[in-house]
């Protein structure tokens, strides 16, 4: 792999439950081909999937960007709102605003954001109500 690495970009559509997980799945396969350690791939895949689901469930849609270099994978998720008013609260285990029809699909435990933070070597979240949310995570290979 070159030093510039590989760049991937995926569009994530609101409530696209059939397509949900495709981006994370492709990312995981690529990391396996490159030969990243399975333990690291697992943390990246789990975090990517949680973040992907959040954009699909909680936002109006957005995208996932991945930059993979020999030493690390950097993931960025950007969506177009509604944003998160209280990030500290959203980061609390068990806090969720997911409605019943989302819970029926197996989401809404309020574990996604804390799980991402635990899995990533670096985790950064910023959000503006009315504009959108941005999450950046880095994983050392």
């Amino acid at each position, binding site marked *: 792999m070159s030093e510039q690495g590989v760049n991937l970009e995926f569009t994530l559509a609101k409530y696209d439950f059939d397509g949900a997980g495709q981006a994370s799945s492709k990312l995981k396969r690529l990391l396996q081909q490159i030969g990243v350690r399975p333990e690291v791939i697992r943390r990246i*895949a789990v975090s990517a999937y949680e973040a992907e689901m959040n954009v699909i469930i909680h936002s109006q849609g957005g995208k996932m960007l991945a930059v993979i270099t020999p030493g690390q994978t950097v993931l960025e998720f950007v969506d177009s709102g509604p944003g998160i008013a209280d990030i500290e609260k959203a980061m609390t285990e068990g806090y969720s605003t997911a409605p019943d029809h989302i819970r029926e*699909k197996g989401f*809404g435990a309020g*574990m996604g954001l804390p799980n991402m933070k635990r899995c990533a070597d670096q985790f950064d979240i910023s959000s503006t109500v009315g504009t959108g949310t941005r999450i950046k995570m880095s994983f050392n290979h």
Partner: protein
Amino acid sequence: MKLADIRDLLRAEVISGGDRLDIEIRSCCGADLMSDVLAFTKEQTMLLTGLTSPQVVRTAEMSDLVAIVFVRGKRPGQPVIELAGEVGIPLLATEYPLFEACGIIYQHGIRGTAPREGWQRAENE
């Protein structure tokens, strides 16, 4: 324990992945909340669940789970079966409800993934 033993214990039907019944099951997890699975399981774990959405297969794929058993007689649709085939995860279905299915397997020596110190300690006491 092999996946074939689990099939026998749960009198389960093999929906797909019948060529992989010799895989070793080291631990199990029973859940209907996928984020709990994503947060608390180890690899080489088998999932028992009452949900049949594509997200169950995706969750198993991301967490390196090795098999899925649908409980309470639930059956996934064809797209879910195809997705599981693509990612190489065998699917089974049992009539037992989640609690019973987990209990039967637990009785035969399979344990959970013990993620939290609290109940790891409780088990050792």
